[in-house]
């Protein structure tokens, strides 16, 4: 019982809401790191995957890069980035996070574009569209739900790994958790965990909202929307 009172008191303490170690600043660090990583990953992955999906090449790689990406643990990627850059803090964390965000975006975008109905492509060609026009006006919009699913997966993954950045002197909300363990301060630990979890869930839900908005015609079933491409390699393997 006392524990819960202490946690509540931690949040009530104004000291925890100001300064470099305060919640707003840590939240901002976390947001900045995660958002930058996802945006950069999008800039890298989207063009490549859109083009590959459009011309129908490189499928094997595009689909399996995601499987490999999932198989290498994010913790390892973080430490590898730290060792490779011989640096600590934001730079290696950012590199690791970008590396983590690219595979789901790449794979989902490729699969999404490929999944566009052959008939639709035919009619687009029949209407005299160039490849570029087809990609921009037909394939990409139709693939948008799956692309968004990939971005959403990447975002949640990035937010989770950004908490580990605290291990290499990074900032962000993970700081409370790592410091809480080190200082044997269970209250700080729990409070930090709450903040991180909340941040992750809010991001997942809001991006889910965006995904629903870009899904033409809404979803057929009431089930939660697709998370990411499964090991079977195809979007169709997952419930919708």
């Amino acid at each position, binding site marked *: 019982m006392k*524990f819960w009172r202490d946690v509540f008191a931690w949040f009530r303490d104004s000291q925890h809401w100001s300064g470099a170690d305060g919640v707003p600043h840590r939240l901002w660090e976390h947001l900045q790191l995660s958002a930058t990583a996802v945006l950069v990953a999008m800039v890298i992955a989207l063009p490549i995957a859109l083009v590959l999906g459009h011309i129908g090449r490189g499928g094997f790689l595009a689909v399996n890069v995601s*499987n*490999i990406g*999932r*198989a*290498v*643990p*994010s*913790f*390892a*990627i973080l*430490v*590898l980035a*730290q*060792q490779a850059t011989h640096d600590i803090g934001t730079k290696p964390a950012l590199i690791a996070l970008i590396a983590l965000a690219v595979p789901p975006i790449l794979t989902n975008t490729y699969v999404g574009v490929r999944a566009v109905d052959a008939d639709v492509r035919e009619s687009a060609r029949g209407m005299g569209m160039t490849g570029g026009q087809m990609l921009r006006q037909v394939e990409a919009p139709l693939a948008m739900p799956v692309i968004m699913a990939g971005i959403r997966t990447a975002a*949640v993954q990035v*937010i*989770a*790994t950004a*908490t*580990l950045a605290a*291990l*290499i002197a990074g900032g962000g909300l*993970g700081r409370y*958790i*790592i410091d*809480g*363990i080190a200082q044997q301060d*269970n209250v700080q*630990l*729990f409070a*930090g*965990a*709450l903040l*991180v*979890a909340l941040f*992750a*869930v809010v991001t*997942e839900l809001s991006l889910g909202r965006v995904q629903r908005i870009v899904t033409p015609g809404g979803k057929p079933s*009431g*089930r*939660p929307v697709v998370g990411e491409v*499964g*090991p*079977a390699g195809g979007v169709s*393997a*997952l*419930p919708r």
Partner: protein
Amino acid sequence: MLELYHASPATLTAMTAGAGGVPCTATKAWVCWGWVGDHRDLIAAAVRQHIELTVVAVAIGLLISAPLSYLAWRRRRAAAVILSGTGILYTFPSLALFGFLIPFTGLTFTTAEIALISYTLLVIIRNTLAGLDGVPEDVREAARGMGLTPLQQLLRVELPLAIPTIMAGVRNATVGTIGLVTVTALITYGGVGTLILLGLQKDFRTPLVVGSALSLLLAVVADLLLLGLQRLLTPWTRGAAAR
């Protein structure tokens, strides 16, 4: 490379980690095979612990997912609650989950396992439901026509046909768990994550690379093994189309 060394020749010979000549631990090499050879026991223990953590997590995950899937399958409303609940668990970063558990269960095997199990639930349940959903309606019709009770229908017809999708979920969950086990290094477990953490703590690349490679290898092997299991359980998907 001896000039990298400030140590005396005595220290040099003493510390030549079995590699003969210059200890490559002094260089910034990505892999010191000498170190690997000398620490086979350490590496083997790490792999064993990793497998143990994974198998227990997925097994218990399956155990818990089975009744939950059944409940979700039978009642739509339960499905929404169960999927949202496990979905939220899935969204929590693992470090956050540890943060929730440590004040109550400490730095123990239980803490590690509760976190790992939580991440398997959504994937397995979701895929189980998808698999059951995917059973063609005419097959269900036929089963009903044969006079099977809903339970018999489930066990004898729907589940077997759903196995490929369920197994895909199990494979997904297993690969994911293998990755997450590395993070348990922060609460004194870790499997091959121990090697990765060692690399960070000692500024030493070899265990880092070895740990990462082993994690990848374990994931690939597990995936293949489970794929083989899947083929074993669904012989009708092999070779010519089933009649």
